[in-house]
């Protein structure tokens, strides 16, 4: 066998492999469709039909988000067509196109990334199907492409985290912050960084000495924190863009013989159950909530849009913050 034909063969194999991955992934997405199934377009009946293209099931937060949407759809009498894009934009675009063909009443989705949506959103607009963005926004100059954006204000979340730190640092001469960023390029990571940076401008003694992505995962947070503890031994505060990375950082700090929450303060965003548990145990100092339970608000908006009512371009989900004492009280009825 000469090397060249083999190379060609490998190349062919790889492309076949890539193809089957996409097909399989697409099938997987379809397989998770809600019981509504293939019951045809919703144009004929008075029941509202909604096509929802979810990002994936990448975290406990996302699972809670999916559950909330599915439950509130069935209690609001909405025929929900649900698809899971497994964190791939192409799958999401495919799902949205399918919804356009099925002539659903409303399309809602949580964009995987910020850009690249103009074409498919224009197709929806031409088919006269209103689009609602949930949880994450798109970066487009044409704001007529979607009716409204329902979701958290990530910049505000970052600001709340920063504001708490500014108050906490009063009277301290120097506060070194290590930042654990989310997935590079993701809206929550960009905005939470921006909001935090803006808030800490008020206190010149607060400095971000190290900032690196932990990919929103526990092992990412742990590995990055391990390295930070060695290259910057004087870290006073960790600001993590989500609870999972904060939980990873806690383990790294403990392995270094320090006490998380005391020797090194930890601020985090999300307020999932594991994070709240750590907060109530005193290992995290402050959590800004990012509420995944936006199903009821989404169904309300969808009905209003269908009835032709005016809705605001931006609807912010109701969110709060938690200190250690508040976490102890809230923990028993935490759903996710």
């Amino acid at each position, binding site marked *: 066998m000469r090397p060249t034909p083999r190379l060609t063969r490998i190349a062919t194999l790889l492309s076949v492999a890539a193809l089957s991955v996409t097909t399989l992934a697409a099938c997987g997405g379809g397989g998770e469709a809600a019981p509504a199934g293939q019951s045809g377009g919703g144009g004929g009946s008075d029941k509202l039909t909604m096509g929802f293209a979810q990002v*994936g*099931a990448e975290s*406990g937060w996302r699972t809670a988000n999916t559950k909330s949407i599915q439950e509130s759809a069935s209690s609001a009498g909405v025929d929900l067509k649900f698809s899971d894009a497994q964190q791939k934009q192409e799958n999401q675009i495919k799902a949205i196109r399918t919804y356009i063909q099925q002539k659903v009443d409303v399309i809602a989705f949580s964009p995987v990334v910020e850009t690249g949506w103009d074409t498919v959103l224009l197709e929806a607009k031409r088919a006269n199907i209103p689009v609602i963005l949930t949880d994450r926004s798109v970066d487009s100059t044409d704001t007529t492409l979607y009716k409204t954006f329902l979701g958290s204000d990530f910049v505000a979340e970052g600001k709340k985290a920063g504001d708490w730190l500014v108050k906490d640092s009063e009277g301290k001469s120097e506060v070194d912050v290590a930042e654990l960023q989310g997935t590079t390029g993701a809206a929550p990571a960009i905005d939470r960084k921006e909001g935090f940076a803006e808030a800490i401008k008020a206190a010149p003694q607060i400095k971000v000495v190290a900032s690196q*992505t932990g*990919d929103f995962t*526990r092992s990412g947070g742990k590995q990055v924190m391990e390295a930070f503890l060695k290259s910057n031994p004087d870290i006073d505060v960790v600001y993590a863009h989500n609870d999972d990375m904060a939980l990873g950082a806690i383990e790294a700090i403990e*392995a270094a013989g320090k006490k998380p929450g005391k020797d090194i303060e930890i601020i985090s965003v999300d307020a999932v159950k594991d994070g709240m548990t750590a907060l109530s145990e005193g290992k995290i100092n402050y959590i800004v909530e990012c509420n995944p339970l936006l199903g009821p608000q989404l169904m309300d908006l969808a009905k209003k849009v269908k009835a032709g009512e005016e809705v605001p371009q931006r609807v912010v989900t109701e969110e709060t913050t938690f200190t250690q004492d508040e976490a102890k009280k809230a923990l028993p009825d935490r759903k996710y």
Partner: protein
Amino acid sequence: MTSPDLPAPVERPAGASLGARVRGSRLVWPALALLLLLVGNTIASPSFLGVRLQDGHLYGSLVDILKNGAPIALIALGMTLVIATRGIDLSVGAVVAIAAAVTCTWIAGSPDPTSASAALTGMAVAIALCLVLGLWNGLLVSVLGIQPIIATLVLMTAGRGIAMLITDGQIITVNNESFSFVGSGFLLFPVAILLALVVFVVVALLSRRTALGLLVESVGINPEASRLAGLRSRTIIWTVYVFSAFCAGLAGLMISANVNAADANNAGLFIEMDAILAVVIGGTSLAGGRYSLVGTLLGALTIQTLTTTVYTVGIAPEVTLVFKAVVVIAVFLLQSARVRAAFARLGRRGGPTRPVPRTAPARPVAARPRPAERVSPS
């Protein structure tokens, strides 16, 4: 074994000087890459090489590299044998996720989630399941004759789904010290790297002190000829896939134990690519045949050091991937005999006053069976 695919043997003329022997070894390039990375880190952060005792165990960046590099090293070890038989195993990342999911779900669901017995049975069940998954891969490749890349792709795609089903899409957190010990425990050294080393030594002894390694190589060079020569190619191929799944399962235990949680979405995500990269950096050819276990170990440590470098030096997340790509390309260029030969020619042209090539004294031309540019990594 007369196929033209036979990789050229590494040239080691008898009585060659130590310098020539070192230059002739394929291990010198991955070792050099690792060394350069460590030197770079030390320049950027002088305390990088510092190791001290902390609560009775070693503590330092190098220890982190060993601990976090253990899963990649282990998976790359299994991958080396698979690649040596001309195969590839893309499913290791999914197997990692399944092992993590099974163990954590088992421990969380047991009557006493903090007991050592829950951890041990959970881990045993997970490893057993991984062996079954390896049997499945091996069946597809060796018995049904499906191309390895496709055969293992099935499990790569389906496996993560299985892990998600097991964990119900949630991150399962466990609080079990015995389990945690596998991932973040210390017996002076990190337990994870000790486990990986044990597996490594066993494989090295089995494959280099018995004929097993030779058989694996011959199957990789020409399966048909090996079969005709009386080797049980099928059994050997089957075995390496089972072993690869075992390594991936063990790595999955380490990865989830390190953070005390099973994250079906992210545990071992893209680790198959890191493992393949480690094997290739270590000097094993993807065309099958000759393989190097030590090279793979060096390759895995190089990749982990690269990751740690990004964090220690403080490279911006936006350029991390580019930085990694540049380093990997540099390592490959360093390894390519053709590129080095081209540089050597350039060097000779640049200095016409020197009539003899630099390497000439150490390597008499007569000792070379083939032209130097094609064969020896001089």
